[in-house]
């Protein structure tokens, strides 16, 4: 069947902000979908609230709506655009849920919009755990025994039957939110309640635990003619009990015989048919008993998923792209395999390599969080590595995580591996509990003398995997013994080659040989032990492949033809983490595409399977490799490119800049030295003084004593942070010497070898971010963003608004002048980001980053000026004039960025904001007024503000004067106010009617009861000081869990008030970016 001609305009839903369980992989799938649809001549209308994504770049879809992905707002887009069809399977659970809501409410029918890819019946059957279990029984497949509960009592009755441990899975949630494992009745009550609260339908599935069983996933595709293929099998190294997103996973499956694999394959085909996914893909999870091979079906996702993104990267089969083509009527045999281009897509990829995925966790940001791994996902990113063997991929995957592990090595101290001691018994006890560090505890276990079989028993990891690990331990021992005695070149070459073939990095070998990385590399090069790059070709070499998608090995034949001087290497940003996410991938992708347009061949290096940058059609050559110095240098030495781009991928490539530069690699754009100058506090201060730019008093320290002296000199409060970090890692505001001492004891480790920076903290200042671009002579401001939260909240966590709304023109002009001067002084060629604070009319420069910043995509989407694309141009010598950028755009509308946090996934974590970044994602609200833009941003961030109802106010004394006019405005709008004693008395005295409510310790009913029982529609809370911290914390957690919007700063409360006024004044409207730009483009930029 050729493509459908009855469809003209297709609506695509994105997944909204990045949250745990729904991350950059949906930018990857959505971007593929947009491209696939446009390639077929369809008009694409896209809705996604996330401005950091590539898909929302206005050059991708025909109409791009950065609007909340909620039924109400998508309906407005439908009413305006009248699409023929809606493709709901590319935007994760969010898109699927919105599509279902629009179907159920009759909106789709009313506007004549057809669901394509998966119909409502199939979605319901797959998503409703009860209907799914019935469907499995109909086709003779087993699911774990269990039942559905809507109360704790019902759950208890089920477990009575099925026994402990029990798995609790809330219905219709994402990434296992609210899920858990209960080992006893008291755990059960808590977990069930948590799950019921998390489920929108207040329902949980309680099932018998198969903790410890082997876990597998299959990625399945089916076309409209009922042709079905399995794209990839994935085996979880961590057995059942750990969410697959938090598991180390391996492709293809390693420990299934063909007989067992084919039974699973048959089951998968039967499932996709029974559920009725008509044209598209799905992911199916299975549990297999290690004792007798019994197989259970765990769940199915009738859409692309994190696993399908991984499977696409692991095999070279672009699942989202193919799924999109199937949704518009093609069959698999009509579509070419994009890698070979000569064979059809109706086949099953075969791998002649092994892929290992590692999760990356955010616990360093949440010291209080529960770090035990369970069925609720907690990781925020992942690395993927490809090797010719499991051992090679396993070690590459670990170093690709960028967690200061050069491979499978134990930490410097037992504490690094979450152990109190490193004796065998401590390790034994620890191994039973899955944690992010367990794989390193396993390493220590071997070193402490435990055997592979015992480790397998304790961890539930299949003995095949622990056996592989044992081989690595043996290889290390053998190398350590043989290396000092190996005299002759052939023997040394053979030893090195053998270790490299098992994935050992030069750093690891240096550790084993008692030498340095540089020495190992020099000898290795002298001996001619260099990587051979192999192609990911979907067919294990059976057919020629047209697409250079490569990975390194230490086999014989190198398949990579160097590009030479006509090529530009773009270094990606590695695994997503808090502080370094999809926004940097946006920059890398945009630049890679731009270099190609400028006539260069582009080479991408990245290790993150969730990204668009690792899609093989974004660059001319893709190296799926860890972003370490060794791995990057090997590629660069083979390719001999024009240069390497380090300024767009965040800290990951930036950290490599100096060493690459020293190794003779040309850094394109701003020099490594300039980057260093900006990071080096002393050098930067000197430049600031020279240019007459005010900076907060500051100093650096490498010891506690120095730090105390500096703090004394600059005056408390001080802002302390290690240099060379991103996302405010270990950044804190310190009010006294005692706290500073405490801080110093822990933070010195955040960046080994780099000093801690100590700045005077400017209380109650406004902050602003400026993104600009320079070509070496000219610097043009891309945008000035004013933070909505006060100084002291990390810029990545603060809402911000563009253009600024409360900063005067003289201050704005001063920031522009400083930015231009800094760009010139540093010799910036490319992007620069400067952060300012304004206090009492004085503009302070807080920091300069001569690189692409987190806000580049936001500014680009808000203004229509593609900063990263232009940066590519200047890096290869174009001037801004040649590129058509002359002046800062003036916007006749307002864009607000709001941060999105992972608190709901992390029990026991406070929601209060601070200088350490903790948000995982962002949304943008764009409208004609600030109030509306802020309101939309809140809706997009799942914090829709109320139009009426009750506002609960409880603020510290310092904030009471500020909050008064704000609540007065709310009061005048008809909102009812409640407050705890102090705040209530304060407001009443100022003539604002306000009801008093008990604090938690004052008896019941109290404030928390009020929130839980749904009597509060908005919470305005600032911390009341040390003694009532617990009280505040419970309030905020209660608000979070019961989805009551809350603000923890005064400025956000004021903004919320503006937004509520806007919401009450009009129904609001939607407008695509392409249309918005028309309102100002003529007057500002003509971007070629």
């Amino acid at each position, binding site marked *: 069947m050729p493509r459908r001609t009855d469809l003209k305009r297709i609506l695509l839903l994105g997944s909204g902000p990045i949250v745990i369980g729904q991350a950059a992989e949906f930018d990857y799938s959505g971007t593929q979908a947009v491209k696939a649809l446009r390639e077929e001549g369809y008009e694409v209308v896209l809705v996604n609230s996330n401005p950091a994504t590539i898909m929302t770049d206005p050059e991708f879809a025909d109409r791009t709506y950065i609007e909340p992905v909620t039924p109400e707002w998508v309906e407005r887009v439908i009413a305006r655009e009248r699409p023929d069809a809606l493709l709901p399977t590319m935007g994760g659970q969010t898109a699927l849920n919105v599509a279902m809501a629009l179907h159920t409410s009759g909106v789709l029918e009313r506007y004549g919009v057809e669901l394509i890819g998966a119909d409502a019946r199939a979605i319901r059957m797959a998503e409703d755990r009860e209907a799914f279990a019935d469907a499995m029984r109909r086709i003779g497949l087993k699911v774990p025994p269990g039942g559905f509960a809507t109360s704790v009592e019902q759950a208890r009755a089920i477990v009575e039957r099925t026994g402990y441990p029990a798995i609790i899975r809330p219905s219709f949630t994402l990434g296992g939110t609210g899920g858990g494992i209960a080992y006893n009745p008291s755990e059960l009550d808590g977990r069930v309640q948590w799950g019921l609260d998390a489920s929108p339908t207040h329902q949980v599935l309680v099932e018998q635990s198969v903790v410890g069983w082997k876990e597998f996933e299959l990625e399945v595709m089916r076309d409209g*003619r*009922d*042709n079905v*293929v399995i794209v990839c*099998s994935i085996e979880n190294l961590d057995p059942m009990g750990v969410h697959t997103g938090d598991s180390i996973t391996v492709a*293809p*499956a*390693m*420990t*299934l*015989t*063909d*007989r067992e*694999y*084919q039974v699973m*394959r*048959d089951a998968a085909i039967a499932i996709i048919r029974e559920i009725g996914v008509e044209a598209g893909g799905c992911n199916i999870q299975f549990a297999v*008993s*290690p*004792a*007798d*091979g019994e197989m259970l079906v765990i769940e199915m996702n009738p859409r692309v998923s994190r696993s399908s993104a991984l499977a696409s990267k692991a095999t070279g089969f672009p699942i989202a792209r193919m799924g999109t083509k199937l949704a518009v009527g093609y*069959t*698999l*045999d009509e579509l070419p395999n994009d890698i070979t281009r*000569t*064979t*059809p897509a*109706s*086949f*099953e*990829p*075969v*791998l*002649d*390599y*092994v892929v290992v995925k590692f999760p990356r966790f955010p616990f360093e940001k949440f010291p209080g969080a529960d770090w035990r791994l369970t069925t609720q996902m907690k990781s925020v990113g992942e690395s993927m590595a490809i090797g*010719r*063997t*499991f051992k090679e991929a396993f070690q590459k995957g670990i170093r690709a995580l960028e967690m200061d592990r050069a491979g499978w090595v134990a930490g410097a101290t037992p504490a690094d591996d979450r152990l109190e001691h490193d004796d065998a018994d401590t390790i034994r006890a620890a191994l039973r509990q899955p944690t992010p560090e367990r794989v390193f505890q396993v390493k220590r276990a071997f070193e402490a003398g435990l055997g*592979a079989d015992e480790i397998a028993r304790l961890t539930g990891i299949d*003995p*095949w995997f622990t*056996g*592989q690990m044992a*081989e690595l331990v*043996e*290889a290390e021992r053998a190398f350590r013994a043989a290396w000092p005695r190996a005299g002759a070149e052939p023997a040394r070459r053979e030893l090195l080659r053998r270790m490299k*073939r098992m994935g050992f990095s030069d750093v690891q070998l240096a550790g084993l040989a008692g030498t340095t990385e540089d020495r190992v590399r020099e000898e290795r090069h002298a001996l001619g032990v260099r990587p*051979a790059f*192999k192609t990911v070709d979907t*067919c*294990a*070499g*059976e*057919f*020629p492949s047209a697409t250079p998608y490569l990975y390194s090995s230490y*086999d*014989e*034949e190198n398949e990579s033809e160097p590009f030479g001087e006509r090529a530009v290497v773009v270094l990606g940003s590695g695994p997503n983490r808090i502080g370094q996410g999809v926004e940097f991938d946006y920059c890398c992708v945009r630049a890679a595409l731009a270099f190609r347009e400028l006539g260069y061949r582009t080479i991408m290096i990245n290790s993150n399977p969730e990204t668009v940058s690792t899609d093989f059609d974004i660059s001319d050559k893709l190296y799926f490799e860890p972003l370490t110095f060794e791995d990057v240098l090997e590629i660069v030495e083979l390719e001999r490119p024009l240069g390497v781009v380090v300024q767009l991928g965040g800290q990951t490539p930036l950290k490599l800049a100096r060493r690459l530069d020293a190794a003779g690699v040309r850094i394109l754009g701003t020099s490594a030295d300039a980057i260093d100058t900006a990071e080096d506090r002393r050098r930067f201060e000197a430049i600031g003084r020279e240019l007459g730019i005010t900076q907060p008093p500051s100093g650096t320290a490498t010891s506690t004593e120095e730090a105390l002296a500096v703090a004394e000199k600059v005056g408390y409060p001080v802002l302390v942070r290690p240099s060379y970090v991103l996302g405010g890692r270990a950044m804190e505001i310190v009010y006294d010497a005692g706290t500073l001492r405490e801080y110093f004891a822990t933070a010195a480790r955040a960046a080994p070898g780099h000093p801690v920076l100590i700045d005077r903290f400017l209380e109650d200042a406004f902050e602003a971010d400026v993104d600009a671009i320079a070509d070496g002579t000219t610097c043009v401001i891309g945008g000035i963003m004013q933070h909505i939260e006060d100084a002291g909240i990390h810029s990545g966590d603060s809402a911000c608004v563009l253009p600024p709304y409360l900063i005067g023109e003289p201050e704005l002009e001063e920031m522009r002048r400083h930015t231009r001067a800094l760009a010139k002084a540093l010799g910036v060629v490319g992007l620069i980001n400067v952060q300012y604070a304004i206090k009492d009319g004085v503009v302070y420069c807080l920091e300069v980053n001569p690189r692409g910043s987190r806000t580049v995509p936001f500014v680009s989407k808000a203004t229509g000026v593609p900063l990263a694309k232009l940066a590519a141009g200047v890096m290869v010598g174009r001037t801004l004039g040649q590129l058509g950028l002359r002046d800062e755009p003036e916007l006749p509308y307002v864009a607000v960025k709001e941060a999105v946090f992972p608190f709901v996934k992390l029990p026991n974590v406070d929601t209060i904001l601070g200088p350490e970044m903790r948000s995982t994602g962002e949304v943008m609200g764009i409208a004609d007024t600030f109030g509306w833009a802020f309101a939309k941003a809140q809706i997009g961030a799942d914090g829709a503000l109320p139009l009426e109802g009750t506002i609960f106010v409880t603020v510290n004394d310092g904030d009471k004067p500020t909050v008064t006019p704000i609540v007065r405005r709310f009061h005048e709008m008809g909102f009812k106010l409640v407050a705890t004693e102090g705040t209530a008395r304060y407001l009443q005295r100022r003539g604002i009617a306000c009801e008093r409510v008990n604090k938690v310790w004052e008896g019941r009913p109290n404030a928390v009861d009020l929130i839980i029982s749904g009597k509060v529609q908005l919470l305005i809370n600032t911390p009341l000081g040390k003694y009532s911290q617990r009280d505040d914390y419970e309030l905020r957690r209660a608000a979070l869990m019961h989805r009551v919007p809350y603000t923890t700063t005064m400025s956000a409360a004021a903004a919320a008030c503006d937004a509520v006024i806007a919401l009450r004044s009009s129904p609001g409207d939607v407008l695509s970016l392409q249309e918005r730009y028309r309102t100002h483009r003529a007057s500002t930029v003509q971007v070629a």
Partner: protein
Amino acid sequence: MSERQLPAYVLLEDGTWYRGATSAPFDVTTAEVVFTTNLSGYQEVFTDPSYAGQAVVLTAPMIGNYGINPEDMEAPRPMVAGVVVRELSREASSWRATGRLGPWLGGFGIPVISEVDTRRLTRQIRQRGAMQGVLAIGDEPSEEARRVLAAAPRMEGLDLASRVTCRTWETVGPGDASFKVVAYDFGMKRNIVRLLVANGCQVTVVPSDTPAAAVLERHPDGVFLSNGPGDPAAIAYAPAMLRELASSGTPIFGICLGHQLLGLAFGAATVKMPYGHRGGNHPVRDLRTGRVLITSQNHGFAIQAEPGSTAVPGAPALEVTHRNLNDHTVEGVRHLELPVFAVQYHPEASPGPHDARHHFAEFVRLMSSTP
């Protein structure tokens, strides 16, 4: 790895050679070197008689992970001439495992070379075609190895089926089965017999050169022609034998070599393919329904026919029913008048996907509708 490793290599007739290692010494062995892309199912591959005379390169790099077991045997012993892998697993992990792959193959004296850049070797075969090669111990090719290789016979013209076939008649399945089937064993995989029995047949397995008359006098409900190794055109006695069987009106179903022999019997020609089809992921279109099957394959020869046509040159009585979507080669034929059909791929899978299993039911239907 703790096992003692000897240097070993594969030398191809084009002069390229590939270094590796082995833990069990073996004699210099010549074989046609072919690759298979099956991700799992190495035990079934090694025991498939169609691989007789061939050294198999597995493109999947990790081999031996789940050990070996008594159930996944397609013949009583491994049939391959040699095994070439990237990494041979030291560990064997499966609840069904009764042994480890390396020692098991070694026990049958089958050369196993590991640590080979199997991708390079595969790419070479893809570009140059399947070649004769030699597997030997040593750091680099020896004169002896080169001499042995030069003297090795080519696959073309080799009747290997007559060597691997059974020597005596054997009947499997219940005596009260609905259908009595005679299966010609050209190197038959056990799973074919299992599936015929599962579909309600009693199967009498007979040697490949059993005269048609001896079969027909038992009045079987159907005749099955098995898979097997070697050049179909070299089995000189087969065409006349098959014509006699077919003209009796007895339903016939052929797989792989059986498919090629049927083609030859009705006038088609067979050709040696450059590097054959071996793996579990080949898309095949059923030209009658349009549906695509993912099939298990293992063959180096094919029936000749022009792409895009259902006609079989030289065999007007046959029509093409299935085509490979990768290279458009013939994957299935049927006789236009007689109850005779055959497929080039392996519906019995083992290893590989089960998409084509319905052919066994099709055979049963054909038998029940034939008077």
